[in-house]
């Protein structure tokens, strides 16, 4: 009968004789009763009592008072009872450290029990008792267990080393357990190997600098062998450990990949993802033209797709990772669009992730299907999902040009549904479509306007207002529409207010006669009645602009906008690389580096993908990176012939539209969009000048343009307004209409604005190398030539000193350049007007153009110059800093930057070290900007700043760079990516020169 009930209990069949009875004990004197039972002579009663104690513990009652009594039950040959007592100990030892010592003897004894199950149990539990005093007693038993004959005990002991290390790292090191653990990697039993690897990885993770896991080809080979034999979990430990290894070369990389790929057929999704991680990482090292590389790419797709039939939580993890993989290597899944179609019964988190991936995979080939699906989703009921689906349609339009028309009509269909949030979302995305394809789909504006009243979300209202402003000339009642918004101006969100202000100014510039009142109204609302500095600033700028020079105002406000980029939400390349190294982990789920959410992980090295063989990038940890001087052993610079350079130029469709207006600060938050310069159609200015309201005649004093950005917009009168300098506006202020008499004092705003241009003659100027002697008098019959180069106001100049060290007068100077890499040529004659007498020196600035004939020079920045005078022709060569060629409109749009970075093959990336530089990242950024190296974005991770910078050369080549600056570390790391990689080293030299100058 007894055994029968036990059996029932075990199978969960019995309902009366189960463990649940232990939960119902008598209430009064419970502890007392239990105490008596625990001390009973009868074994059975004792066991029952311990079970009751554990039951109480489980429901959260404090039974720590029974500690000595329970520990007394520890010495038993009943395994079940022993396990329960151990469980009790684990729970309460910490609260009763002194009494826990009582248990030590039994533990030590149990570690020598003939039954391996008990030995393992003892060593496992001892490790879980996190009491310092116990740990020292643990050492001897642990040492024995690590060498136990039974693998079950050894594998348990291996994990125990990690536990002990967590409690007392020093002790573990002193006792030499780490070495024993390393030896276990060569154990004959795969399970022991797996646990030893897991324990070592765990210890290494908390001590990143210990060289614990010094993986070498021999250990790697052992791990790969164990991989075939250990349990699914052991396989994950080993694969995760392998992922930390950096193979020496592509051949080793390939051979590891070959041995890891069979894991892709494992039934456990976690094994598959860990294998994917290893492959994605090591693949980075394989040459792309290798057959195996293609094979591997093909092998990755099917298992990734199969992950989508796993349990929903695992699907979610898989989808988040696929999102990364698709960004890193789009080719893997480009034909698998269909599997990401959303099923009705998918959980919402799976649906949203699938949508994201669908957009990433959308291409001309599959767009019809994708759109049909998205339209289907947009009629679902789940609001978040529907919104995202509508947004996705807009993104498809922007991404796949051929589909734009279809997308727009789909969106119109959706607007007809009149479902409020669908309409609003659609309007937001249509605005983006207008941005991407200006003047193409305005026919839909009428439909949009019909829905004006139903818009209650700021983003949708702002988008609609933008559309009305942008197409004001085609909307008959644009003024009425905008006016209707103006009524509740102060209740609107900032976003809407800013848009409204800009839209009305646009309207005014387009239809000045009817809208003067409206514009005055909005300007005064924005400047006088608002507390928002952004709004006020923008208001003042418009006001000033309109009042001083409407032609310029039109140029600025109605400028052609830069195109918006196709890909959105791209993860920054360095972060993406790091996340690829963390496939399968929480980091890959959050799309954040571990340092962002794990405490105490500061200072832990960020993982990076290994470099492809033969590329200039260093493969080791960052501090082993090549210094600038060591670049010479970089791959031979295959300089493109002139044609290639031109080819590069033509390929660069990423460049922003050339501006006729000097660079306007795009880093300005406010009004940036409209202020960006662009093509302009002229305007009969005089007509407007008389009508434009002006709040205050401007004071064009020759004050220095300066002042810090973001300062109070309500500047005092008399602060200089530098419009004339920046935009070349006519300084013709107009009288102030009487109605505006109360306008506040304005000024300064524009001065602030243009300070950011960073281009011409600003505080931090362009880098100019020190003067050197190019031609010695001895070699040139007494003519000494020294000089330097500079870039001033967008013009490259060669500053030359000619000294006559001969006895006779020199005259008839002329200069000529040999063909050179960047087509530099004198843009005018060498202006030495008077003959140069003996011991006389003349300083000449020779303007240079970069449109001359091109020929590759070695080094790239070499310039061969011939100078002629009445005596002879002299030749010399000099080298110019390549920064001379950095043009002023070299700031790339952030999105374009991301896309370009991704697009440039990683073969083209080169890494350099800049040593002993003590600037802060902001100071460095400013300094670099002076030489037209523009910071596109800045990201700070822990104490490390990453500056993403763009440079455009005179020949249209773009150079992208990432500068990593760690606080307190004078060594910067510079990664340079360029389609013409041979310029990279010269760029890095410039960085060094500029930063240290």
């Amino acid at each position: 009968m007894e055994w029968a009930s036990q059996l029932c209990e075990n199978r969960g069949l019995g309902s009366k004789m189960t463990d649940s009875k232990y939960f119902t004990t008598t209430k009064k004197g419970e502890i007392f009763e239990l105490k008596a039972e625990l001390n009973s002579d009868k074994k059975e009663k004792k066991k029952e009592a311990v079970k009751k104690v554990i039951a109480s513990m489980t429901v959260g009652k404090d039974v720590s008072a029974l500690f000595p009594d329970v520990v007394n039950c520890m010495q038993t040959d009943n395994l079940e009872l022993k396990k329960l007592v151990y469980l009790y100990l684990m729970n309460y030892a910490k609260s009763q450290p002194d009494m826990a010592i009582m248990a030590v003897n039994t533990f030590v004894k149990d570690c020598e029990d003939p039954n391996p199950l008990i030995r393992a149990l003892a060593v496992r539990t001892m490790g879980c008792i996190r009491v310092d005093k116990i740990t020292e007693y643990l050492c001897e038993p642990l040492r024995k267990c690590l060498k136990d004959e039974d693998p079950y005990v050894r594998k348990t002991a291996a994990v125990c080393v990690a536990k002990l290390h967590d409690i007392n790292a020093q002790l573990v090191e002193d006792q030499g357990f780490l070495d024993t653990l390393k030896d276990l990697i060569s154990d004959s039993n795969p399970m022991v190997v797996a646990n030893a690897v897991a324990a070592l990885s765990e210890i290494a993770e908390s001590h990143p600098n210990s060289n614990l896991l010094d993986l070498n080809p021999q250990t790697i080979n052992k791990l790969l062998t164990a991989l075939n034999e250990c349990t699914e979990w052991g396989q994950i430990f080993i694969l995760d450990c392998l992922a930390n290894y950096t193979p020496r070369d592509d051949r080793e990389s390939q051979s590891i990949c070959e041995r890891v790929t069979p894991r892709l057929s494992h039934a456990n999704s976690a094994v598959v993802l860990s294998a994917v991680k290893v492959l994605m990482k090591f693949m980075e090292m394989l040459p792309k033209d290798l057959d195996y590389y293609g094979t591997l790419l093909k092998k990755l797709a099917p298992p990734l797709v199969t992950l989508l039939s796993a349990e929903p939580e695992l699907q979610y993890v898989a989808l988040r990772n696929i999102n990364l993989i698709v960004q890193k290597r789009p080719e893997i899944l480009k034909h698998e669009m269909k599997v990401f179609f959303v099923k009705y019964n998918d959980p919402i988190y799976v649906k949203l992730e699938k949508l994201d991936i669908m957009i990433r995979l959308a291409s001309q080939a599959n767009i019809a299907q994708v759109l049909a699906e998205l339209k289907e989703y947009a009629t679902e009921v789940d609001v978040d999902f529907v919104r995202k689906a509508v947004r996705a349609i807009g993104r498809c339009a922007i991404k796949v040009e051929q589909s734009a028309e279809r997308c727009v009509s789909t969106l119109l269909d959706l607007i007809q549904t009149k479902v409020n949030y669908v309409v609003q979302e659609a309007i937001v995305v249509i605005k983006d479509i207008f941005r991407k394809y200006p003047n193409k789909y305005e026919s839909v504006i009428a439909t949009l306007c019909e829905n004006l009243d139903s818009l209650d979300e700021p983003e949708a209202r702002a988008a609609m207002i933008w559309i009305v402003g942008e197409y004001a000339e085609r909307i008959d009642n644009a003024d009425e529409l905008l006016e209707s918004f103006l009524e509740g101006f102060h209740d609107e969100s900032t976003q809407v207010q800013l848009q409204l202000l800009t839209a009305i100014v646009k309207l005014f510039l387009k239809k000045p006669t009817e809208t003067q009142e409206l514009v005055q109204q909005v300007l005064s609302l924005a400047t006088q009645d608002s507390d928002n500095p952004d709004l006020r600033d923008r208001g003042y700028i418009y006001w000033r602009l309109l009042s001083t020079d409407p032609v310029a105002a039109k140029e600025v406000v109605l400028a052609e906008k830069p195109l918006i980029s196709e890909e959105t939400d791209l993860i920054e390349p360095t972060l993406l690389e790091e996340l690829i190294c963390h496939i399968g982990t929480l980091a890959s789920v959050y799309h954040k580096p571990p340092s962002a959410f794990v405490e105490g992980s500061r200072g832990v090295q960020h993982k990076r993908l290994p470099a492809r063989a033969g590329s200039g990038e260093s493969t080791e940890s960052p501090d082993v990176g090549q210094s600038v001087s060591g670049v010479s052993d970089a791959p031979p610079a295959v300089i493109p012939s002139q044609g290639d350079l031109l080819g590069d130029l033509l390929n660069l469709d990423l460049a922003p539209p050339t501006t006729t207006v000097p660079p306007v600060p795009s880093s300005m938050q406010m009004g940036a969009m409209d202020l960006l310069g662009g093509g302009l159609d002229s305007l009969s200015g005089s007509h407007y000048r008389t009508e434009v309201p002006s709040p205050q005649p401007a004071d064009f004093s020759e004050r220095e343009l300066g002042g810090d950005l973001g300062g109070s917009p309500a500047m005092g009168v008399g602060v200089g307004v530098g419009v004339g300098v920046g935009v070349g506006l006519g300084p013709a202020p107009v009288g102030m209409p009487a109605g505006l008499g109360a306008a506040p004092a304005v000024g300064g705003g524009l001065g602030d604005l243009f300070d950011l241009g960073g281009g011409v003659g600003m505080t931090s100027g362009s880098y100019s190398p020190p003067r050197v002697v190019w031609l010695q008098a001895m070699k040139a019959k007494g003519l000494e030539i020294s000089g330097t180069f500079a870039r001033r106001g967008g013009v490259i100049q060669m500053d030359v000193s000619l000294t006559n060290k001969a006895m006779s007068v020199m005259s008839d100077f002329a200069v000529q350049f040999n063909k050179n890499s960047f087509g530099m040529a004198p843009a005018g004659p060498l202006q030495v007007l008077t003959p140069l007498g003996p011991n006389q020196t003349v300083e000449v600035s020779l303007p240079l153009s970069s449109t001359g004939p091109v020929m590759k020079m070695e080094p790239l920045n070499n310039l061969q110059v011939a100078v002629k005078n009445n005596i002879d022709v002299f030749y010399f060569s000099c080298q110019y800093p390549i920064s001379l060629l950095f043009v002023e409109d070299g700031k790339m749009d952030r999105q374009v930057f991301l896309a370009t970075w991704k697009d440039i093959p990683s073969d083209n990336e080169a890494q350099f070290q800049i040593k002993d530089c003590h600037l802060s990242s902001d100071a460095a950024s400013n300094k670099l900007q002076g030489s037209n190296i523009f910071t596109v974005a800045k990201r700070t991770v822990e104490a490390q700043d990453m500056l993403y910078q763009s440079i455009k050369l005179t020949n249209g080549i773009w150079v992208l760079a990432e500068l990593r600056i760690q606080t307190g570390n004078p060594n910067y790391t510079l990664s340079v990516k360029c389609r013409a990689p041979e310029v990279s080293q010269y760029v890095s030299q410039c960085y060094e020169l500029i930063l240290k100058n």
Partner: protein
Amino acid sequence: MSASAVFVLDLKGKVLICRNYKGDVDMAEIDHFLPLLMQQEEEGLMCPVISHGSVHFMWIKHSNLYLVATTNKNSNASLVYSFLYKLVEVFTEYFKELEEESIQDNFVVVYELLDELMDFGFPQTTDSKILQEYITQEGNKLEVAKTKVPTTVTNAVSWRSEGIKYKKNEVFIDVIESINVLVNANGSVMSSDIVGSIKLKTMLSGMPELRLGLNDRVLFALTGRDKGKTVTMEDVKFHQCVRLSRFESDRTISFIPPDGESELMSYRINTQVKPLIWIESVIEKFSHSRVEIMVKAKGQFKKQSVANNVEVRVPVPSDADSPKFKTSTGHAKYVPEKNLVVWTIKSFPGGKEFLMRAHFGLPSVENDEMEGKPPITVKFEIPYFTVSGIQVRYMKIIEKSGYQALPWVRYITQSGDYQLRTNI
């Protein structure tokens, strides 16, 4: 690396049982779990990972339980979810049903299992058949000598014990193919695939070596064989008993099978399949008055075959009432709690076509809550037939004692995720 602690909670968030593996996360943190989950549910933004400060909860739900793992590290999330599902599998094998009661009724074994399944956050032995050899509540009855670690636990063959004996040595092989189909409202097939599974019931003595031969196209191409129909498997997943590297190199499926029932492998086939049961539906909704449904089902498979237990589930509005049905065969039933009409046809021969009409009333005051557009789903089973044409060509069984063993093969095709979108 993975979990710091594992909790089993009831639906109210009360901890039924837990195990602290690493001690680096405060066990009281779990109190935040359910409120956060509720908040997410309210916002409609459920997510399998929830974080609270530096603590991350990874959770799954099973019947009336939440299984939650906590961590404060960058854990391997896929490992944690796999482990939680494994936990469900093991508990289910032990207690038949895993639910609140079975946890309470067996808390001693649950503790023991939790201790054995994971150590310091590293999953250990999770094969329930092997665990049952040494974690039982009969343990106290056994002599000390008998409760030994089964060598299997640490063996390279960790899924099969030695010394198994059967009088009659047999293997039953089930080849089951599930058809997943997604059909658009306009009748075009958006996606379709076949997920196959080969299940074994092994009743073999000793440590037999098995080799399974399929008409795998890649294998045939490798061996230069060119006879009969072959099948291209897009992706194959194996039970851990199969030697993966062997398969990778020469496509041989060789293994020592676990005893009893197991899934040997699963595969996915991408080839577009004709939906075996084709549904045409006309659903007309007359607001404030009625819904009329006409569904035509057609068996698009061989005349010799018969689909069994066919169920066509047609969604109806939640406020529909007074159902009326007419069917050319089988029988239709309204299931109001699921807002479905279920049309059941016990036996559906290939090539045949059947019709069902349904009529519902709608209230004059309409439900203004938006309703989703659930698809029509279909369930069926067609025995003695695989839609892909996959075949077991042989099963070689070699054991050192040299016994003769018989393999038995059975084929079946069934519906998987079989959805047809409707217009309404």
